[in-house]
């Protein structure tokens, strides 16, 4: 997993609420057995028409946003299916951070496992950044994970909260499984105790 510390990038505005994982990556692209290569199909049904031509109005098809690394989105981003193909598709497109007022739980966790930072800010701050994002490539948003700040194009900085453990893993690009395996003595001990108490499991 790639480390995430600082990011200065173009932010694409997606001012819709309840953007679900079916919109992020429709199910016909879940047939892959790999993690990579999903970026071309990110937001497929909003991005392309039935013949596979780009829909020029869709934000990521506009020249200013083709290299966007940040998404600013409406409430409850990533609801719906647990498919990790959603963060894989975002990442493969080049998105490293999302800014919204809220996320669905599973999607939120899936982001951290793939080196994407989902930032939660209050509605009025998301609104400021949404306005910024609408200015196109001229308005870059800066994210500093160490100091937990998002800085708008005009220099206004907002503080965001993030779980310390998740932050640590993201800053250092740490793999969860490796970390957990260091605790295998605790798991062994639990297993022994639990199988005595609940042998039918």
């Amino acid at each position, binding site marked *: 997993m790639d480390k995430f510390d600082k990011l200065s990038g173009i932010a694409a505005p997606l*001012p*819709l*609420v*309840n953007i*679900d994982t*079916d*919109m992020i990556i*429709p*199910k*016909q692209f*879940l*047939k*892959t*057995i*790999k*993690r990579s290569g999903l970026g071309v199909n990110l937001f497929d*049904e909003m991005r392309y028409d*039935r013949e596979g031509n780009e829909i020029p109005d869709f934000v990521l098809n506009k020249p200013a946003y083709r290299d966007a690394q940040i998404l600013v989105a*409406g*409430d*409850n981003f990533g*609801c*719906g*299916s*647990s*498919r*990790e193909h959603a*963060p894989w598709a975002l990442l493969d497109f080049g998105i490293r951070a999302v800014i919204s007022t*809220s996320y*669905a*739980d*599973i999607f939120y*966790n*899936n982001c951290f*496992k*793939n080196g994407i930072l989902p930032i939660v800010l209050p509605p009025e701050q998301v609104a400021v950044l949404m306005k910024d994002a609408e200015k196109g490539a001229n308005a870059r948003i800066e994210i500093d994970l160490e100091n937990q700040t998002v800085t708008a194009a005009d220099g206004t900085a907002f503080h965001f909260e993030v*779980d*310390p*453990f998740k932050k640590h893993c993201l800053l250092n690009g740490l793999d*969860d*499984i490796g970390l*957990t*395996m260091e*605790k*295998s003595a*605790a*798991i062994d*001990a*639990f*297993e022994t105790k*639990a199988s005595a*108490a*609940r*042998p*039918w*499991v």
Partner: protein
Amino acid sequence: MSPKTLYDKIWDAHVAHEAEDGTCLLYIDRHLVHEVTSPQAFEGLRMANRKVRAPEKTIAVPDHNVPTTTDRANAATMTEDSRIQVEALDKNAKDFGINYYPVSDIRQGIVHIVGPEQGWTLPGMTVVCGDSHTATHGAFGALAHGIGTSEVEHVLATQTLIQKKSKNMKVEITGKLRPGVTAKDITLSVIGATGTAGGTGYVIEYCGEAIRDLSMEGRMTVCNMAIEGGARAGLIAPDEKTFAYIMGRPHAPKGAQWEAAMAWWKTLYSDDDAQWDKVVTLKGEDIAPVVTWGTSPEDVLPITATVPAPQDFTGGKVDAAQRALDYMGLTPGQKLTDIAIDTVFIGSCTNGRIEDLRAAAAILKGKKKKDGLRAMVVPGSGLVRAQAEEEGLAQIFIDAGFEWRMAGCSMCLAMNPDQLAPGERCASTSNRNFEGRQGYKGRTHLVSPAMAAAAAITGHLTDVREMM
């Protein structure tokens, strides 16, 4: 001891390690695996030279992407990429030595139907699966939730999940349901009342007389859609109905083990003075047969209502409602019962169990579907299918003009060829009405099995109470 909720009790019994910041390693008792969200996890294990830590607690079944046509034994009926996924699961199950129900096995079916049916799901367990509807298993008083593929890999390798505890939410449904109102109407009405993010950060426990009165099948329908309300999991405390359902299932405990298990299971309830972070109460009598009109499961209305206008909403929901109406091709003020339907889908882990098929067949008996309408029944498992054939339900569906399919997810997510065409409108017993969920530009109205059957007969959304 301080009073605890059911969730607190199950949580406390499964914490294998707790870090100073409250991050826990939660031990996982059952890990269910299917073909779509697991290949990358097994690939990860192979690359790191890791094994499955507890293969005996890991159960795999292909369901999302398998054909549901009766000729599917012939692998040529599968599209190339579906076949690759199913073959990958075959191989992974074999290489890693996990429990497996291949497509050819009569016990194959939707993972959330197979788990309870085979007695893998038991009260007080932690159950995970790389599928958001894992909440279904909460009907047994198991803490069950969906996980992503990285987490699937994590559970395969360590039998634990990194978790922080959620908050406790109580959803109480008081009193009795009126005739024609089902578990599906309860769960949709709750989402209608709380919104799709109303449960975010919570584990919901459903309780109250109307919940107690439900069968295990009905309780699974209710918990299944906890995720649509944003909750991490949904739970119902186990009782005599739960124990009766489990007894004698292939993987249920037997003899002295059963007695020991029962002794613990009977302690699995929320203490009277337990603390709740949020409480929602609905009156059973107030719940009507409902349908969804929009593209979010929270867009719920009683069947007697009319299509709302965007101005009826506030905030970000105004634009969302306009977009939903455009997508669904509906006009504000139109009666819901005037909406014509092209397709009826009965199935999914929400409503693909025997009781659901009985409810639909009771309405369809001796009747025919409307001409020109496509109607299909996809039983949730091979065993549900067999039982429905034995009870004569299959014949009722066939006589009514329904396709009688093999088990799988089918048009619930439309990964296989069971899809809506653009603009087609479906009355569906599944759980998601998102844009494109059942096919590109397809339009979904979520309903109960009885309501789906009623719509099949009339060709439009219909109040099932008029047919009873």
